[in-house]
């Protein structure tokens, strides 16, 4: 039944989206078909779909590990930018060099960059008890300003006609294509590998168990010897590291350089991906494809029927709304008055057994 909610949510989004966009004076049905159906019948778009789904899946996988443990890392956007920047730093200082070691070093530094940015809210939460929602989110805005600063000043390409962007990366600094002649770069299989690894970690290792127990039953976790601080650190570093990796993969892949337009909201969309995928890495792979569809379809709807780019965000938010609403309808059963009275003891027992999912929020 857990799987019903995402399906209901996507279906409801299609219907409500068509109605909403009609009310706003657009061709609602056309827009919905253009975004959600047409890319599915265009083989060229399939590649685009995979390329856009890869960073979403990677970021969402890291975030989901935190959400499982009630660690609310909302700073993936900033961690993604910092990962991109850290890797770009390596690229800019190795522009004149060649060697197959450069790209791996860039990816490692990307991971570290994301982790460093995530370590700030983790440190503040574990030492001072600062709410990680607000601190991680604030760092998104700081990261954007840092990006702008580097693009306008120190990292600007001296031969770039004064455009605020870095030099193009060299061949040794660019992601290879896994299928020659397509758009599908190394990041795509890497994202799938990350999700599969995370699935194994969550299902079969003590660390995965720790994250789940701390989220479901914090008191039991404490008695079991799982430290609250170590859980926050694991969750934030996984989230930050994977967001950073996604960042440098985007910079070294589709972008091929660092530009001020680098942040595209993947860090926020990945939150929706994580929830739509039920915080499960395998579900996240599917959910990433669905959300990638809104990007790919949204782009083509801009050119074909002139739908504003903001439509993508509206569809994405509606999907999360409907998912949250559908959850309750799936988790609870509507019973008539007499039946409710008869089965009351049973219902109470069921309620006890229910996980404390998403109940406690510390502010």
């Amino acid at each position: 039944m857990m799987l019903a909610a995402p399906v209901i949510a996507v279906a409801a989004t299609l219907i409500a989206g068509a109605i909403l966009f009609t009310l706003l004076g657009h061709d609602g049905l056309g827009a919905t078909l253009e975004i959600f159906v047409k890319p599915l019948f265009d083989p060229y778009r399939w590649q685009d779909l995979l390329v856009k789904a890869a960073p979403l899946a990677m970021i969402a996988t890291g975030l989901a590990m935190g959400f499982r443990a009630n660690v609310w890392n909302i700073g993936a956007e900033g961690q993604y930018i910092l990962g991109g920047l850290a890797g770009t730093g390596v690229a800019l200082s190795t522009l004149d060099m060649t060697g197959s070691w450069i790209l791996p070093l860039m990816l490692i530094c990307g991971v570290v960059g994301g982790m460093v940015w995530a370590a700030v809210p983790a440190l503040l939460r574990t030492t001072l008890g600062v709410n990680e929602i607000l601190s991680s989110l604030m760092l998104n805005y700081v990261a954007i300003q840092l990006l702008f600063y580097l693009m306008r000043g120190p990292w600007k390409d001296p031969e770039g006609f004064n455009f605020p962007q870095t030099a193009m990366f060299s061949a040794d600094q660019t992601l290879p294509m896994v299928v020659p002649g397509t758009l599908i770069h190394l990041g795509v299989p890497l994202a799938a590998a990350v999700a599969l690894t995370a699935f194994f970690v969550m299902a079969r290792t003590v660390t995965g168990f720790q994250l789940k127990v701390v989220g479901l039953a914090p008191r039991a976790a404490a008695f079991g010897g799982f430290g609250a601080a170590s859980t926050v650190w694991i969750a934030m570093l996984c989230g930050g590291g994977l967001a950073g990796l996604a960042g440098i993969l985007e910079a070294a892949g589709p972008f091929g350089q660092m530009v001020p337009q680098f942040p595209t909201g993947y860090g926020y969309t990945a939150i929706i991906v994580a929830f739509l995928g039920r915080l499960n890495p395998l579900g996240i792979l599917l959910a990433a494809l669905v959300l990638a569809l809104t990007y790919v379809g949204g782009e083509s709807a801009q050119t074909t029927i002139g739908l504003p780019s903001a439509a993508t965000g509206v569809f994405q938010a509606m999907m999360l709304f409907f998912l949250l609403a559908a959850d309750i309808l799936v988790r609870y059963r509507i019973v008539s008055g007499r039946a409710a009275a008869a089965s009351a003891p049973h219902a109470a027992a069921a309620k006890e057994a229910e996980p404390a999912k998403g109940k406690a929020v510390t502010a």
Partner: protein
Amino acid sequence: MSLDLLVAILMTVAGAATPLLIAGLGELVVEKSGVLNLGVEGMMLIGAVTGFAVATSTGVPVLGALAAMAAAAAASLIFAVLVLTLMANQVATGLALTIFGTGVSALIGAPFVGITTPTLGPVFPDFLTSSPLLRLVFGHSPLVYVGLILTVAVAFFLNRSRSGLILRAVGESDAAAHAIGYPVLKIRYLAVLFGGAMAGLAGSYYSLVLTPMWAERLTAGRGWIAIALVVFASWKPGRMLAGAYLFGLVMTMELQAKAAGFNVFAPELLAALPYVATIAVLAIISAARRTGTAAPACLGKPFRAAA
């Protein structure tokens, strides 16, 4: 520093502080009732675009501000139904509301980019604003005074009125309030709607007074800072006033530095300052309050009435 310049600086501080104060007071009441609404940023954007659209099409900025309140309250109703009636996760739903508000406002605002609007400027007659000091008292947009009056009103409501006491009881112990017979969900619905209306009013301040124009993501994370200020204020309206004006000062630092001819810092670093300051302030507040928290005890927890 000349008196004129000082007054000009203080006026910009009041301008930057007012939307934080109004949105923050709204969120403060919401949180006092035990609900955490992280959708302030989204509701502010919906308010900003609605206010702008109505003000430009009717030519009456006050109508714009009222429409902004109504539209943002309507958006907060989506949140209320999800978290109160359907008991959805408040953090996730609030985030969804922010993403929704960002998208919807960009969508509605697309035709309004690049046009100007009648502003909600100073209301007092000219002779009252002739000297700098008089201007400091009488030269503001009406919303600046609304913010100050609202601070007193919210403080009175929470601390001195019976209904405020009930609202606090609901936030501190929903089960007890329910047992005595207070309608927990109804009170929370009203609090969320009030918070939405205030976020909308704060948003309209950006598009009708401060900027005054419409651009995507016009509020640039100010809604999140308003939420942080609630924590900074320890859920007290008086401290919210102090916090908002302190942040108004930090936010206008970029402007002040330019006016004073400082070019030491890159403009991007100054633009990042309010967000860094927010983190620093949260850290200081948390460090000073190591034992326990001033947060309402039921903050963020769903309530289901025991049959």
